[in-house]
């Protein structure tokens, strides 16, 4: 995939597909240490040690319609191409954490891409999930908590036009501030 934000979307789909109702995504851009980190933690059904050991194999999947599961292998490949690594921990019945690292300045490191679009999709399509996102670029931080948004909204659905509009603007604005925009 050409953007890391698409991998984030894909992995959060894995989390909700595994029955998670609590997902936390952490993105850290550290120019001083030259590291990009993306961590996705969920409270889904987890993987047993046998599956966990094989999960980077593209021919391993929980899907029944096809014998291929490319999400994790593709992301694993990008980390390895960028002097990084993909760590996965999982406990059956408790959840899974995917922790990925890339050298931030590596020429082959895919861009983060449209994270606002990914976050909007996650929020709108998974209203029952408690989703938290924290993105740091150097010293700057943007933190998002779906519970806070839900409390402010009450019964109003996220698909309400004015709300969608607000989410769009809120995400784009706050993400651009991280990179020095206003």
């Amino acid at each position, binding site marked *: 995939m050409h953007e890391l934000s*698409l991998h984030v979307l*894909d992995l959060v789909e894995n989390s909700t597909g595994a029955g998670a109702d609590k997902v936390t995504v952490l993105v850290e851009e550290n120019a001083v240490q030259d590291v990009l980190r993306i961590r996705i933690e969920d409270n889904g059904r987890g993987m047993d040690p046998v599956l966990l050991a094989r999960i980077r194999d593209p021919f391993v999947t929980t*899907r029944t*319609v096809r014998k291929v599961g490319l999400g994790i292998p593709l992301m694993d490949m990008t980390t390895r191409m960028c002097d990084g690594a993909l760590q996965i921990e999982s406990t059956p019945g408790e959840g899974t954490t995917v922790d990925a690292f890339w050298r931030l300045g590596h020429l082959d490191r895919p861009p983060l891409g449209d994270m606002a679009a990914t976050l909007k999709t996650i929020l*709108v399509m998974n209203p029952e999930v408690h989703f938290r996102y924290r993105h740091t670029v150097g010293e700057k931080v943007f933190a998002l908590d779906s519970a806070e948004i839900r409390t402010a*909204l009450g019964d109003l*659905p996220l698909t309400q036009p004015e709300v969608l509009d607000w989410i769009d603007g809120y995400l784009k604005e706050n993400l651009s501030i991280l990179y020095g925009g206003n």
Partner: protein
Amino acid sequence: MKTVEDLKRLREKLQTDNQIRHAAGTQIIVGMGTCGIAAGAREVLSAILDEIAKAKIQDVNVTQTGCIGMCEQEVLVDIVKAGGPRISYGKVTPDFIPKLISEHVVNDRIVEERVIGKITK
């Protein structure tokens, strides 16, 4: 500068307006497996949400599904009108969405050229 406080004010304003019901009248299902995402499902979904908002269509439920095995046809979008058959569209792009919504969702006219399957109950 947008803050979560804006949402509270928006909520007050909107709740004194009409009540918006999102009952399961029409269902729109977007394929969001790895293949779908790689093929651009995120942008297609965004276009669908925008089009529904713009056209102020009520009673539509937009959901996602995983990979169904027809990866080369992604992005897949299924439309089920209340009580009707499930129509699957393949190779959907964001540009196609305004036509898809106005033809099929609003006017009940299936857009034949992009249909790839039909499941009747």
